[in-house]
């Protein structure tokens, strides 16, 4: 069974970005500059926030989750929301049966997944890389994955 957090039940995480919302979506950066920015090493603060994801803090209160979302926003201040990660996948250390947890930034939800349960398709692509354990977490984008090492280094995979 899925392990729900924040009392949100087992609703499926939404991965769509509502393009109709009149918020700042694009930046003055060119696509090449955006790619270059996303190549840059991630900051220690960002890594630390993501590290806490597994500690379960986010299950207890919404403030912790908001802090995490703020950290993600702060990591990419110059990028529009459609240029930032759609979500994150990390190895779950809660132990069996859990294998990975996802943070769906669109739906503001953290959810743990058992080995036998499929993640949403966009996140599922990162499953084997997450299970490998060499990366702290995987950032999910529409056409790419970015594997983030413990030192903040970035490896890009085009799907």
């Amino acid at each position, binding site marked *: 069974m899925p392990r729900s957090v924040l009392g949100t039940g087992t609703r499926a995480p939404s991965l769509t970005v509502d393009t109709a919302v009149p918020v700042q979506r694009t930046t003055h950066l060119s696509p*090449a500059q955006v*790619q*270059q920015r996303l190549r840059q090493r991630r900051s220690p603060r960002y890594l630390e926030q993501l590290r806490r994801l597994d500690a379960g803090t986010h299950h207890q209160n919404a403030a912790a989750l908001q802090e995490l979302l703020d950290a993600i926003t702060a990591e990419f201040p110059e990028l529009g929301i459609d240029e930032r990660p759609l979500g994150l996948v990390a190895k779950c250390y809660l132990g069996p049966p859990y294998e990975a947890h996802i943070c769906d930034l669109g739906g503001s939800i953290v959810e743990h997944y058992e080995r036998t349960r499929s993640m949403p398709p966009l996140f599922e692509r990162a499953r*084997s890389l997450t299970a*490998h354990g060499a*990366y702290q977490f995987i950032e999910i984008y529409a056409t790419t994955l970015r594997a983030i090492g413990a030192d903040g280094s970035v*490896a*890009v*995979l085009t799907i």
Partner: protein
Amino acid sequence: MSNVIDLSSVHSHINQLQRDMQVVNNNVNTVSEQVIAVYRQQELTKDQLQALAEEFQAFVAADQKEKQKQYAATELVRVRQEIDQKFGHHDIVRRTTTGILQASDLEMVRQNTIHTVTEQLMVTTPNYWLAPALVALSAWIKDDRTLAERGVAEAIRRDDNKTSLFFALVCRRARRADALTRWLGRYFQMQNPMAIDREVVIMLDGLANGVFGGGALVACSSVIEQWLAELEEQAGFLDEQRKRWAAQLDVMAPKPSDRDYPTLRKYATNAPQLMAALSAARRNQAVHDFFTNLFTGELIVPPSIEAACDSLLDSLVSNFDDEELPYRREERLLQLIKEEDGDKDSARRRFDAEHEIHQENTNFAAVLTSSAMHPEQLGATRATQRYAVSRSREWIMAAHNDLVARDRMQVTRQADLKIASWSGMSSDGANESALAADLKQHYDARIEAAVSAVALSPGVWIALIAGVLIGGLIMTAGGTAILIGLVLMAAAGAFFYVKRKDLDRQRDEARKTLEKEHEQAAAILKASLAELADYRYEVAREDARASDVTTLLESLSSPQFVLQRPEQRVSVA
């Protein structure tokens, strides 16, 4: 007349019939054994045929490769002969270049002789840029300004880039710093970093080997940075550069040998994926070794600036003639087929990875990559190779990280084993007892099914029923017919009894055959899981070496690889 029927003869007939039936039974047993023997022989033949088919396929593949190798060797000779026939006369001009300079240094040859030689070359090698350049050189030595200017003008008309570099090197050799800077400046002005001629490698060589000192060194260093900055502003350049490096690193993955995990390769249905992951993990060590070897050991420094310039002049006049390019491309592909022992696909992959070397012009970053990975193809020196790698390290690291992530994502989490009729999965060989139990359960079920399947055939039942019925019918006629009927019924009964008794033997035979197969499958399973455990250990160990490559590359910086010649002490900021 006695009413007692003498059944002794019936009894003896029945006994005789029983003996005959025993003989028939023995014969049936013999036939049965022979059928089993034939079945075993057929299985053996099937295995041998399978092995033969595999050997034949391997032979055909090896034969094709051998033929390709031989063909490549023959074609290589032909292409080289063709190059020699078409461009052999250029060689004389090339050799004359350093010959003139050295003869002039030594003052052992009369100026008129030098002049005559260059004039002859001008006549015998039409359209070749070097011939008028040599005429200009000899006129310069002879102090004939008019002829020198005409010669230079003609050489520039034929090939401005090469002529500018040529005279830059000649001026450096003659220690004319101002003239060197002007020739280099002229060369730089003509360059477009997006489509640069291959001979720019000579400039890199001059820089990395410390041939260009003082202002020229600073000019070269700054122009390289400027070109790269221009390139980086181009959309998609960095991605292209990372892909270029990824392609170079990817072909360094060693192929798994036949001795690697033979049982796993044979019995895992996803063995190709497992071996691909192994090969990819082993690439880390290959890449690390490549860069370690590159940066290990002293560089051979030419004893004087003259020798260093002569070496660069030789390279300039020998390695970059565009007319020879189509032949050089063909020569390189054939050479790679030969090196890959006739494996055309592998050769093609390697050729594709270095295809930019054989283009007339490409972007400057591609030249840096080619100088780093295939210096022998461009005539670049080891110093240039080190400089190019250190200047490209950010791209190499990014490409390496991307490749490693790609391969980690493709690592197969389970080995899918198929041994005879059984199949199972294991991730690391740790579930041996569970799989062994499953295998046993599988064979227990098969044995049970096989034993149950052994039953009397309908023919036996028909013979029994028919014998009893017909015997009964005959007996109704009375008299001696009773005797005949009894004999017939007894025969049918005896036949049924014998066949029924034989079932136990057949069941035993089926059980033994499957038990033997189970033993063999259990041994294979054990070996496969042991290999799988070793495989996982090796893949994890080799995968961890990925960080060694990053650490090594992070320690490099390009200015440290600009060679300081003894006669100069100017460093790059």
